[in-house]
């Protein structure tokens, strides 16, 4: 088993900031980044971002991502790309997999900065090829310079709408239809998406981008049994934290979007606090002051859209992985299911590869509307490793 002093999971703004602060205070820091570059959300954004380093430079998202990489490299942070922490076990032991090997890693202190995932809201035809989330489309356009289509439809009006529309325009793609209320959206086509309608009139499209905002993604903290509460600001259950951003699990800090949807400035200020906390820095108080200041001045990022349960058609799939339709979830609730775990036990909804990240919000909303359970009581389903789809052969090649 490997051992590290400080392990940061996620190289977005929050994670990179935490790693930089801890390193500057003398800690040895390893940063695990699942993707092929650091920068997280910033990598696929072309819009000008908040002034994270307070130097007056108005950087676009991808420029900020590149700067984070330069700073991490210069500071001597051990950055491991394409490295996925898929499990958090007792005593801060992580299961990690990369393209070559898998290994266990015991960390004295962990900063979880796993960021967000796009919210998905079911509508008729949303499972057709050509329909994709905002970050899938932004990744294609702004990192890989491939456009989703030439006649694109947009569904939803989440917090990333501006970024999506600017990116489409910059790439020279026409938006032929925008259905801002997902309740009205309907898509169809043979083999892949061909049309989108909002109010009955069909527009010919070759791709649809769904834009509903983002949700905190702290699956490893849930695996580690961290206590959670329902945050109205994020419209989601998120890890409880101390003033110093430590979770209820000892030596596990959670920062940035993973702990609740934040602005970019707040994510950086949180990372800075955690970095000073894990390195027992004398500057922790100053970092805490800065965070308090940012929280009062930087505004808030709006929570993701919530599905309208009443208008969801029976035949629409809610759980894409296991192909469970709304009717089946409704039957499960009518049959006595009152929790997300109950629904999963009855029909496998939420049991698929995505670990429920794209359906449990919808299932919670269906239970809330049909059985009257409050969102506070609709706790996330039990999180079990692995957090990602990993070939068994890769785990079997473990060095342990």
């Amino acid at each position, binding site marked *: 088993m490997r051992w590290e002093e400080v392990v940061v999971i996620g190289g977005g703004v929050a994670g990179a900031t935490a790693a930089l602060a801890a390193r500057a205070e003398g800690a040895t820091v390893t940063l695990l980044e*699942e*993707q*092929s570059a650091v920068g997280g959300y910033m990598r696929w954004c*072309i819009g000008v971002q908040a002034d994270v380093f307070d130097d007056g430079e108005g950087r*676009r998202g*991808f420029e900020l991502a590149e700067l984070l990489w330069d700073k991490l490299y210069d500071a001597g942070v051990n950055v491991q790309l394409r490295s996925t922490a898929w499990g958090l076990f007792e005593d801060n032991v992580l299961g990690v997999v990369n393209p070559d090997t898998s290994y266990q890693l015991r960390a004295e202190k962990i900063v979880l900065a796993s960021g967000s*995932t*796009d919210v998905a809201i079911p509508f008729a035809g949303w*499972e*057709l*090829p*050509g*329909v*994709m*989330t905002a*970050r*899938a*489309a932004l*990744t*294609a*356009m*702004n990192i*890989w*310079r*491939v*456009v*989703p*289509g*030439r006649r694109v439809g947009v569904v939803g009006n989440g917090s990333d709408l501006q970024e999506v529309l600017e990116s489409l325009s*910059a*790439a*020279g793609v026409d938006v032929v239809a925008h259905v801002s209320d997902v309740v009205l959206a309907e898509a169809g086509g043979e*083999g*892949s*998406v061909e049309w989108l309608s909002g109010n009955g009139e069909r527009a010919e499209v*070759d*791709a649809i981008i769904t834009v509903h905002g983002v949700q905190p993604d702290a699956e490893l903290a849930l695996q580690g049994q961290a206590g959670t509460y329902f945050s109205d600001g994020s419209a989601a259950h998120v890890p409880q934290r101390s003033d110093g951003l430590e979770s209820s699990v000892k030596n596990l800090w959670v920062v940035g979007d993973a702990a609740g949807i934040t602005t970019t400035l707040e994510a950086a200020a949180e990372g800075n606090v955690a970095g000073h906390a894990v390195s027992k820095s004398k500057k922790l108080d100053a970092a805490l002051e800065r965070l308090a200041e940012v929280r009062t001045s930087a505004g808030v990022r709006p929570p993701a859209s919530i599905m309208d349960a009443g208008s969801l058609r029976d035949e629409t799939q809610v759980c*894409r*992985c*296991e*192909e469970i339709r709304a009717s089946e979830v409704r039957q499960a609730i009518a049959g006595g299911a009152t929790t997300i775990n109950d629904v999963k036990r009855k029909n496998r909804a939420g049991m*698929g*590869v*995505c*670990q429920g*990240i*794209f359906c449990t919000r919808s299932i919670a909303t269906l239970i809330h509307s049909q059985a009257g359970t409050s969102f506070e009581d609709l706790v996330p389903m039990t999180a079990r490793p692995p957090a*990602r*789809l990993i*070939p068994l052969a890769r785990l079997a090649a473990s060095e342990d």
Partner: protein
Amino acid sequence: MTDKDTGAFRVSSHPMLGERRDADVTRVIVDGREYHGFVGEPIAMTLLAHGIRSARSTAETGTARGYFCGVGRCPDCAMTVDGELNVMTCITPLKPGMIVRTQQGLGTWEEAE
């Protein structure tokens, strides 16, 4: 290389990202047909650039799925690549000469090589 060789859905010149710095071009076989893509880009991007939107059909209802979450969380872009089943093409880099196949459900032993 011209845009035509690597797909019609590329953006070569971009007002903010600038001119594209092309990587090496490689041949890739998708369901028996020859295409070209850039080494190192996710396989799903090579396909999307050629307007190939469907990656697999589902196990239960056999309906088509494609690139959806883009970040390795959902199973919808999983394909059979060089005989390996369930490869998430959105996060797997294209290597020279890959053979990519549309996958039926969770894949079959016959598909795996």
